[in-house]
Structure formats: structure tokens, C-alpha cells
């Protein structure tokens, strides 16, 4: 079936789009960067992290919409970046950083971390809120994987990829609000599951929450993924 072609306006620029695709996909094709964290092209979109929010003009609504879940309409006018939107995205990052332990110098994902890279790209260089420092257990039961909930940002990528791509359904979200957590087989240990280090769920964790054992600090400073070039989109699995 041929997709219907339509035109939308993104940041004042006319962009060709296919009916039914998301604003994020259309913008990406047009070379417009919208920061994302929970979105991944291999997975369904949930609009959870709110980084990709954009303003849809002329709706009369005050709130911003997540571009990864909002389908385009013909003639739609979208603003993906303005000082106001940038400020709010930074504030959102401040909240994420304040929630758990996201201290980059002490994290083995540093330099390869999407959260860190997005923060750099958006210029979020300080957090004005007190760090909440919840004490979460580290699960090192798996021979090849470490699961450190202290570095989790609850994007849900592991939950979705384990279910949708790996077809193992190992991860889930438990609890509610600030007490939410990624859980393995309902309070189980990663070592007791069939997860392997090559699972997409492990590969595309945007933070240092799910890491492969034995690789810590093996890349030199300057050679890591985001050392040379700012982030342009979600990392791809190996």
C-alpha cells in the first residue's frame, strides 16, 4: 500500500511527510533533531520521557505534545524548538538527574550514555534541585550483566524491547510514582532469567542502568561514542 503524502511545517520549514507517521519521524527525515530518551526506532512509542515534546500551533491548547506519539496531519504547524521549549526540556533533565544517581564521573557508561549526551547537547550543566538519592539494590547475579537501578531513568526501553523484540518479557515496571522501579520477573534476579548480554533490552539502555560486565572504562577518554560528536538519535544495538 502506498502511503499518502502530505506536507507539514516544522520550525517554519515545509516538510514532506506520510500520513499516519509521527512528527518525530517526519522531522528526523528532514534533518531536524528532536531530543529523545525513551523513544527507540525498534520499539513502540509510549511518550513517557517527555524530552521530544513539541508545540503544535493553532490547537488552542497550552500543553506540549510528545512528537514520538503524535501523528502528523496535513497542514500541521509544529515548533520543535524555542527558548521556552528548550528551557522546559532542560528542566525535565534536571528532574531526571535529581531523581537517582546520575553522577557521570563515577559511571562506566559515561561517554556512551544517551542521557548524558542529551544533557550536554541541551546545555543542562547544573541541577537546581536536591538529589533524592534513593538507595536501590544492584543486581549483579547475571554472569554478563549488571543491573543498577540507581542509574535507571524509567524510560521503559528494556521493558518494551524484552517483550517486543527479544520476546522474553523479562522486565516490567512495578510500584507507582516516585517509587516506580524496573523489576525482573517480579522481584526476581537477572541471573535467574534467560536474558543474555546480546539482548536488545540490554544493548539499548540509554543510561548506566544495564551494563555489560567486563567492559567498564575499557574505552579511553576521547574515543567514546559521544566524545567527538553530539548525540543525534538513539543508539543502535550491536
Amino acid at each position, binding site marked *: 500500500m502506498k502511503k499518502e503524502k502530505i506536507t507539514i511545517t516544522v520550525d517554519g520549514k515545509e516538510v514532506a511527510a506520510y500520513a499516519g507517521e509521527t512528527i518525530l519521524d517526519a522531522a528526523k527525515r528532514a534533518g531536524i533533531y528532536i531530543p529523545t530518551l525513551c523513544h527507540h526506532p525498534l520499539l513502540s512509542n509510549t511518550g513517557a*520521557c517527555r524530552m521530544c515534546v513539541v508545540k503544535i500551533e493553532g490547537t488552542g491548547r497550552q500543553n506540549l505534545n510528545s512528537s514520538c506519539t503524535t501523528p502528523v496531519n496535513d497542514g500541521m504547524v509544529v515548533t520543535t524548538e524555542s527558548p521556552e521549549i528548550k528551557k522546559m526540556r532542560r528542566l525535565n533533565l534536571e528532574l531526571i538527574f535529581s531523581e537517582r544517581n546520575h553522577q557521570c564521573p563515577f559511571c562506566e557508561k559515561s561517554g556512551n550514555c544517551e542521557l548524558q549526551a542529551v544533557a550536554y547537547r541541551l546545555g543542562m550543566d547544573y541541577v537546581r534541585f536536591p538529589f533524592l538519592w534513593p538507595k536501590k539494590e544492584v543486581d549483579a547475579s547475571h554472569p554478563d550483566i549488571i543491573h543498577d537501578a540507581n542509574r535507571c531513568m524509567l524510560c521503559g526501553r528494556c521493558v518494551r524491547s524484552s517483550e517486543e523484540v527479544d520476546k522474553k518479557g523479562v522486565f516490567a515496571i512495578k510500584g507507582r510514582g*516516585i517509587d*516506580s522501579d524496573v523489576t525482573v520477573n517480579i522481584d526476581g534476579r537477572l541471573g535467574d532469567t534467560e536474558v543474555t548480554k546480546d539482548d536488545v533490552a540490554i544493548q539499548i539502555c540509554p543510561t548506566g542502568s544495564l551494563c555489560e560486565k567486563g567492559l567498564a572504562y575499557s574505552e579511553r577518554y576521547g574515543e567514546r561514542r559521544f566524545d567527538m560528536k553530539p548525540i543525534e538519535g538513539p543508539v543502535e544495538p550491536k
Partner: protein
Amino acid sequence: MATARLRVLICTGKVCEKKGASAVESALISRLVQFGLNDEIKVSTAKDCVGYCKQAPVMMIYPDNILYGKVKVEDVEEIVEEHFLKGRPVKRLIDDSLDAKDVIDNMRKSNFFKGQELRIVMENAGVINPESIDEYIGRDGYLALGKAVTEMKPEEVVDEITRSGLRGRGGGGFPTGVKWGFVAKAEGEKKYVVCNADEGDPGAFMDRNILEGDPHRIIEAMAIAGYAIGSDHGVVYCRAEYPLAIERIELAVVQAKEMGLLGDNVFETDFSFDIELRVGAGAFVCGEETALLRSIEGKRGQPTPKPPFPAISGLWGMPTLINNVETFANICPIIRKGADWFASIGTEKSRGTKVFALAGRIRNTGIVEVPMGTTLREIIFEIGGGIPDGKQFKAAQTGGPSGGCIPREHLDIPMEYDSLKEIGSMMGSGGLVVMDEDTCMVDVAKFFMEFCVSESCGKCPPCRVGTKQLYDIVDRITKGEGVIEDLEKLEELSEMMKQMSLCGLGQSAPNPILSTIRFFRNEYEDHILRKKCKSGVCQALFTSPCENACPCNVDAAGYVQLAAEGKFYEALELHRERNPLPAICGRVCHHPCMDKCRRGQTDESINIRAIKRYISNFEKELTVKPITPTKEKVAIVGTGPAGLTIAYFLAKKGYDVTIFESMPYPGGTLRFGIPAYRLPREVIDQEVKLITDLGVRIVYGVRVGLNISLDRLQELGYKAVCIAIGARVSYLLGVNGEHLAGVMGGMDFLNKVNIGFPIQVKGKRVIVVGGGNTAMDAARTALRMGAKEVRVLYRRLKEDMPALKEEIEEGINEGIKFTFLVNPVEAIGEDGHVVKMKCVRMRLGSYDDTGRRKTSVIENSEFVLDVDLVIPAIGQEPETNFAEVEKNILIDPKYRTFVVDEETHMTNIPGIFAAGDDSTGPAMAADAIGDGQVVAGAIDRYLGGDGVLWEKRKEIIPTDSYNDDNYVETRKEFEQYVLPIEERFNNSTIEDFVEVERGFSRDQIIEEARHCLHCDRASLSCTNEDI
């Protein structure tokens, strides 16, 4: 249905049930059987709530329309014998706000029901048995469904709803007909109708009431919706906390199916519709439509982004119509009576009625239904009966955790979607929580944030982390750890959450914070800058509620506890640490401490003022050592309470203080405004002596501005000059003839009398105009001076009088006559002297912001009173002209008070301060002392000091008498010896006025003080972990 002579409905709603409705019901039934009345009189065994929870349990008798309130099992016999047998209604069970003549039909005459005569949603409330489909049908039930499926096309139904102007009652206010139209047009192999019965707002119980009271109404409406949009399947999503609602919906579905009103071929047409019930586990977020749909699907109850909207892709990805309970409850009447009828009710943009759950600090709690656009004032004061215990209204909270607080200034707001949104609140589902002066708005914001933190689903960071960070900031503020930048941070973060959160919960979660900052910023600033919670809620900020309420910050809990131990000297010293005038305050203070005393919530407040007065007796034996001044010279103008307080604190700090007093005696308004029968002169002299003993000089007979100029004072080396001259000029009435001889302002009269100026009162008829303390003082003084008759005219009612209650009562005892609801309009003179006063009668109108009713003149109601002396006591202002003339000191043009800087308390002239009534406007003695403390600190800071006058107590007072039994023990009568009336008038001069209140005995005081609840222990333990 068998024909019955009378029908009795006993409310078995939650509140009535709790208060024993079932016991009343079974007692009634057995009594009716005993009298053989059980065929004649039908008792409904399961009933619907009428919403009049204040009078629970309530019993309604039809067709008489009589409502009995607070019915007990013991009352049943009387009801049966008197009312049911003899036809004489039992008057004593009728709401006491009504006259006895209104017994028949009292339901509709009470204010509670009068304001809500038109009921749409609740038309069957209190009328039918919700478990009987027959009774529902008897009230036009299923007529609308029949009409829709047999006479109307689906699009006509949608059109009818659209034209009615009905908007979603769940809170958002989206036009219902438009939504129906969307779903009707949407394409899908199956469509669903969902009823959102997941009412989760704290304080909201409207939907529960409808579901429990009239379940068929919802079922019928859902079937109509199904017909209109082309769906054959409905789901009611009800929270598990509503077991009775669930039970009744289930029963109603079974009944409707049996009658062919649900299921296949409804009304023998092609239309089929079935309803299933899903029970939610009580997550607040499941009231959000997308989360609700996920929950029905068996998934984690988390919202999904919109678009796609449920109308396009809802339950199982199919087009889904989702409306809340109250919205559905409006559908049948619209179909039955037509869109035009419905659209004629309410306001232009909000049609129909709205149901509110009235809760909080309000007399009549319960469910009310009013036309859209009814003002908040009407709902609270007319229907709700106002605020109990004589407290002041502070704010109303609508929309639950998503809504905002509406302050006093907006009491006239029409309750409709758009106007509420404009002021930062929202209609929400209809929770309406009323708050009084004892509510701290920062604490309210904290409460709602706490709710949002625990109810956030956790999917998106703005809500998950944002609510937590907002809560933490507000929590710090309530603990006195806030900084002023926090307000900016709160606003910035709130704004971001509103725009970026995924669903409505997160987008509206900051509303309570934003609206409280918007309308009650001063309370936030009090907490942050002054570490003060004026409402006495945030425990970490004060030692005890009584101390917190005291305008002079006296550690009342401390001296009360010491008094309980018999340690009266220590108690006195503790008192004098903050207030050097305990004997004076022990007699004339308006004791706000006692209004906030927590003991008052159990039986009666501790009589703190009496204890204060008793410990002050020990001042007679107190000696103070003079303090040699080491610091700058300070001049104070006036020896009133403010001036004396400043002198006391500054002298203690080492300043060289001189007070200039125009009169030959000290005391200011205490002496020349308050009569000696309330405050004997030797009491003033004794306390002033303790201040002069410290080294404070008082120069009598020097009037600053007349005998010496402010400039001269500064030239003489006074580094700071503080003007504390009180407010002694009486306001005029503003009527013709008020300049006649024999018309004299209240303060003017008291001043002259107390100076010893000869005023002939003996044998005269005196009229005092006004209801404040000055009016009562003037009236009682005139009586003591031999007036033939003293009459107080007041334009409102006795309960509205601002004077101290005990003063009014003593005035009545002494024989003062009162005429209420009158206002003088003209003083009529003969030969230049007043002889008559022309007055008009006033009528009570709507309520003002303080909860008192406004008055207006009744036309042609003039009448004339004979009079020899008229004393208008309607207010006073300070005499500040001299300062304006001499130094251009800024004066408030309206109130004639000095304009002082909020922080430095200095006038616009450096080094010149103002304190007490001349800067705050007329207030109480304790307020002047409190202002004196603030200004003493400010002067100290101005002259280079730290401004600290005392240290906050950090430890509990070790007491032997502290005992849990004190909490529950019954209190002994606590009555003081009061001078018998006949002995009060044995005076020859005003100096002989004998003190009326004579205080208490040592044993009485210890007994009273022992009942202190030691609230300071709780507060101190918030800040001090060792306790």
C-alpha cells in the same frame, strides 16, 4: 405498589448509616407492626442519600415533606405515636434553624434545600428506593430510552445532546454532544460506551451518591448513548471503595435485563445493549480516561498520550465514548424534556446544574445541586449555612488535587467551567472543600502535593519527579527551612509540569500550589521570611498554638505549665521576657490565644487570660535592677502599650530611653480609653513603675508637636525617635446635626471622662452608636455616671458585634438596652442641643466576605428616639497632622496613619519610627504591644544591634503535673467572682469605678492550668530530636 398513607424514607447513605440509621429503621418497623400500621405506612428499607448529612441520620415523611434530623432510636416511639397516629409532627426533631410554623413541608423551606429547588441529576434523590426498578419507572424511568430508540434517529439523539449545551461533568467540561458526535462518526468494527465511576478526588462523593441512589439513571443513559453512537456494549468502571454502588449497579443491570430494557432488542427494536461492570483497584490515575481504558484491558493503569483520543482509538483500540457518572445522569432528563429546557438553565457557556460535595469547615456538609452560575457565596453561606464556631472563611478548594483555592475576594465567582478556570482553579468533578482561618494555605498545598506524589503513576518525569520535588520544597517551607527563591522555583517547575506532563493528572497537579501562591503569597512569605504560620498549623514554626496566636508572642503554654506547678514567679518571669504588661493584659487582652487553644476542641479552651492575671499579682513583690545605659539616646512619644513596650525592650538592651507624654499620667489609651472598672489605675501605675525602675525616664506634660518639635528631639541627640501616640480621634457619623452640642465621639467621651473633665450624664438619656469595644466602654461608663437610660444602636445583630463577648454580656446584665438593625440618619437639635435622633431600620441581605450579612435600609422605616447625649463610637483614627506639618512625614490619606517601611518600620524620615495604632490603625492593646516589639527590634537594628529581643524556648518545661489523665478528666466549673451589679454603681467619681472582674483563687488557677494539653511538646519534638 401497595397504596400507603404515608411513606417514610430513612437515609442509609454512608453518613446516616454511621450514625445509626439502621437501628432507627428496625426500631421503626417493629413499632409500626406493633401498632398495626405496617400496611398504612411504608418504610423504605434501602434508600438513597438526600445529601443533608449535617442532620444525619435523617428521616423523610411523604407526602408531608417533613424531614426529621438526628433521629435516635428513642425518638421512634414519639414519631409513631404523635405523628403517624395523631398527625402531630414532632417539632423538636426539625432542624432548629426553622420556625415551628414551617413544620409541614420543612424540607423545602430549609435554607439547605431552598437554594437547590431545581434538581436534575438528583431529582430522585430521597424519593425512590434505588433497589426498585418499579419506583424508578414510576418516576418516568426508561421513558427517555424508549423515546430515543423508538422515536428518534441516532443522529437526532446526538443533536439533542449537542443543542442542550451539556458539558462533561468530570471536570474538563468538553461538550458532551460533540464527543458523542465524534464517536458516532468514528469507524470501528465495535464501539464501546464507558462510564467513568472512578471518583477519586479527596472530599468528593457526588458520583457515589448518584450510583447508590439512582443506578438505573446511569444504565438508561448509557443505553441511550449506545444507541446514539452505534454501540452495543457498555462498561461501568467503578472503584472498589464503593461496594454499595457496585452492588446496586449490578442489581439494576439484572432488573433492567429482566424487563427487556437491556440486552437484545430493547423495546422490541433492533437495538441491543449490554452492560458489564469493572471494578478498579483505587488508583487515582485510573480516573484519567486513557489509564482507565488500559485498566479495563487488564494492563497497568497508566495513561497513554492523546492523540489518539479514545473517541478514535479507545478500549481495545476501538472508538470509545467515555463520560463520567454525573454527565450520564443528565442525559435522560434532556431526552425527556428537550434540549431547550436544559439549555434554559445555568449560564450561557455552562448549561444545566452542577452537583457539589460540600465538605470541610462548613455548617451544612453534604451534597448540593445548584444551577450553573450560582455564586460560591450563595453555596457557602446560604445553602451551606456559613462557617461554624464564628470563624472566618478563608478559601474554598474546588476540583480536588487538580483544582485551586478560591479566596475571599472571589466569593462572588459564578460556579461554572470558564470562570473557575480563569482564576486558576477548575470545576473538577465537584468536590468543594471549605477552609476557615485556621487553615494554613501552605499546608493545604502540601497536602495536595502529598496526594499527587503518592498517586502519580510514575510514567513521565515531570509528574513523577516534579511532584516529589514540589512536595519537598513546600515541606521545607512548612518547616521554616524555605528560602524566598523557592517561590520562583515552585512557579517555574509548576509551569513546566503543566505543559510537559503526559496526562491531566500531571498537568493539573501543580494547580493547588500555583493558586495558593497566587492568592496567598503572603502566607508563603510569612513562612519563609518571618518563620511564622499565622494559622497555627505548621508545628515546626512555633512552640505552641497559643504562643503562635499571641500578638505579643508570649509563651503562654510555658507560663500556664509553670502556673500548674505553683511556680508563679517563674511563670511571671517567663511572661515578662516577652511582654512587660501581664497585669494589664490579664484584664483587657482579647485573648486570641484562647481561640486557638486545642483544649477548646475537646471541652473548653484553657482560660489563659485568667492565669496570666493571677501570675501578674506577684509583680507587687517584684523588684527590678536599673540598667545603666551604654548605648544611644532614644525618644519615644507616648506611654501607651506600644511606647511602654519599646521602652522596656530598648532599656533592657542598654539604650538611654526617654518617653514624652502629653498627659500628667502614663498609660495612654490604656488609661484614657479603658474605664477603671475594667482596668484599675493602680495596675497601670504598678507596671509602669517596673519599667521606669529599669532606668526609663518619662517626661509628663510635654506634647511633641506642640511643646517640642521632632527636629528639636533629634537635635537633642535622640538617635531614634518613635511616635506611638495611639488613635484617639473619633470618626464622625456623617449625618446632619452631628455638630450639635450633646453629640460626642466615643473615644472623645472616654478621654474626657477619664481625665476628669466634667460631663453631665446624670439623669440623661444616652444613645451609643456602634458595636465595638469603645461603644461598650462608653455605654457602661455612662451608666456608672448616672445616666437614666443607655441604649446601644447597632446596624447588625448581636452576634455580629465586634466587641468582646464578655463585655456585651456584662453590659446586658448591667441594664444597657440594645436596639439592633438600626442606623442613625439625623441628629435633631433644639437651641443648638441634640434632643432627638432620627433612625432607620435595616434589613439583612446577602453575606459579605467576613460571613456577616450585609445590611440595607428598609424604606419608610424612620423612627425617632428622644435623647440627651449621643455617643457615636464607630471607629477612630490617629492625630498625625503635627508630623505631616513639621517634617512632611508621609501619612496615609485615608486612615491618617503613618506610612512606615515594612522592613525597617521607619517613616520616610530617617531615624523617625512609628508604632502601635498610629501606624497600624486602631487595634487591640495586645496588637500595640506586638507592634512595639517589632519596632523595638527594628530600632535596635537601625542603631547597629541584632534586633533579637528574646530566644525561642527549645526545651520542654519539666513538670510534675504533666499527666495523661489531665487530657480526659472532666473540668471543674471555672467561675470567677464578679462584683454584684448593685455594688458597681457606688461611685462618686470616675476614679472610684470598682473593678468588676475580680480574678480567681490560687487553687482554681492551678486546677485550670493543669488541664493544658502541653501542645508545646509536640511542636518542640518536631525540631528537637532529643525530646
